């Protein structure tokens, strides 16, 4: 038996498989529009683009580090207590993020209020830990985290753009619709501020996505 046969061919850093980890969650396997996870926060904090952006960034950070840590520890965690271990890791990271937000963007942190803490229960994070990080090496786990957090984030921001623009005539807190429109009888759409409209907006995104990407349509 020759020894050279056992040397593994090293996978390139951005192999096709790894690239898919990054790009799949953006569209074909989007955590919000396809898996319908993390809807709670998508409805709650998409009133303003700024909030949505900070939320998306927080989730990105928490996801990368929790995926990385769980992936590093994957052979040490006994499978019986894995959920509690994952929770401790995610909770610790969320507290860190929360403190950073409070220190640097206090006003946004105040608006996000309880929803920063609720990142702990965001199903996307737990889902990725369970489904991916526990069974994969650190590097693919990080890619997976970035991909899913980006997939979550772009939906969040698109919904927030619609809601802030039509709901209060602003983007990133800056008045976009000029005063002359209001003088002509334009009104902000109050329904856009309410959570039901976030659900409908997500629904419309799903509708558009599926009509463009026909392989997503289930046969029934």
């Amino acid at each position, binding site marked *: 038996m020759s020894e050279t046969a056992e040397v593994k061919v090293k996978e390139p850093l951005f192999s096709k498989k790894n690239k898919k980890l990054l790009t799949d969650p953006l569209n074909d396997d989007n955590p919000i529009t396809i898996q319908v996870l993390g809807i709670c926060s998508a409805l709650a904090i998409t009133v303003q683009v700024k909030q949505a952006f900070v939320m998306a960034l927080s989730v990105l950070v928490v996801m990368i580090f929790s995926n990385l840590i769980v992936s590093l520890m994957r052979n040490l965690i006994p499978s019986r207590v894995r959920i509690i271990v994952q929770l401790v890791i995610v909770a610790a990271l969320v507290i860190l993020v929360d403190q950073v937000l409070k220190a640097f963007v206090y006003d946004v942190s105040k608006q996000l209020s309880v929803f920063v803490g609720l990142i702990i229960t965001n199903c996307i994070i737990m889902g990725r830990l369970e489904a991916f990080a526990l069974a994969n090496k650190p590097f693919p786990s990080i890619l997976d985290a970035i991909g899913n957090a980006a997939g979550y984030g772009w939906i969040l921001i698109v919904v927030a753009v619609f809601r802030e623009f039509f709901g209060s005539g602003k983007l990133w807190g800056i008045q976009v619709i000029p005063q002359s429109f209001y003088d002509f*009888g334009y*009104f902000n*759409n*109050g*329904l*856009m501020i*309410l959570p039901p409209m976030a659900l*409908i907006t997500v*629904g419309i995104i799903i*509708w558009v996505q599926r009509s463009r990407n026909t392989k997503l349509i289930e046969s029934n």
Partner: protein
Amino acid sequence: MNIFRKLLDSVKPNFEKGGKLEKFYPAYDAFETFLFVPGHTANTGAHIRDAIDLKRTMITVVIAMIPALLFGIWNTGYQHFLALGQPDTAFMDMIAFGAMKVLPIVIVSYAVGLGVEFVFGIINGHSINEGFLVTGMLIPLCLPVGIPLWMVAVATLFAVVIGKEVFGGTGMNILNVALTARAFLFFAYPTLMSGDKVWIDTTTAAGETLADGYTGATLLAQSTESATNYVNAAGVQFTDVFSAAFMGTIPGSIGETSVLAILIGAAILIYTGIGSWRIMLSGVIGGLVMSLIFNAFAVNPFMEVPAINQLVFGGFAFGIVFMATDPVTAAQTTRGKWIYGFLIGIFAIMIRVFNPAYPEGVMLAILFMNVMAPLIDHYVIRGNVSKRLKRVKVAA
């Protein structure tokens, strides 16, 4: 009629398979079936021979709404001149003013709604049907006269796309489309859908808005203050508020004020068998029961409003007759209809009295029961099945 037939026949080849406008066949089909009896007949098996089809059903409902529309047009003018302090203005002037205000809303509602129907019909290749004829009339009738036209357009667009087309078009919607439009406006632009300023057009002849000196509050809004003392737009107390509300000479949404006109519509719907009398009757009973319960407690003025007045105030009559009986969104089983109507009556009065921020509880009650209707039907059918099963076991 011949001229239409010739015109249609001459353009038909363009729309048939292989023609250059093949994609637009649904649009052609819509015009043809609207103008003429469709030429196609059922070609398999036995079928029921009856002249009634979707087109005739819808037209009958539209005819039933005509009295409410005409009265609404007059009342818009009447309230306007009353608020300006000129109640003796000629009848035709009131009609003319009302028509000038109301007809654009009707036109916008139809234009936008039918436009959406045509676009979806052409994209999906299904035939365009007459479902929107009723909705297009209901939307203006349940709006205040002061509503800007672009809002009517946005609401109609939203209601037809999100309320109907995403579910698969006419006959597939869960929520009443016209009420979806109204609810959209109510939550999106509350300042223009409620309050005291929106029900009467107070633009003076000089084009200025009358600032004060009139009362634009609806009877429902006034009920929060007192159950006996109501004033009209000129600030004069109604001597007999019940008959004023029954006749409809009160501020309110365009078509909802006159219970008399609505009852004429109800008679047409019941006589032709298109509207369910069970839903209407049980809705009225539900409203009466809830009002009487409130009367028994009577801890605030709104609870003291006599039960009979609750039925003629606001949009209760309009909602029960035209909205609740929508055959698509109502319960389908006979027993289900009784439950459905009764609960609409109960909830309508309950929301109205308990939450002064939502004086028009009828809208929310009907939308809520629209959602519940399939559940009601499910349990009615299950109940029937288990009853029959029991009978089988006894026999065996």
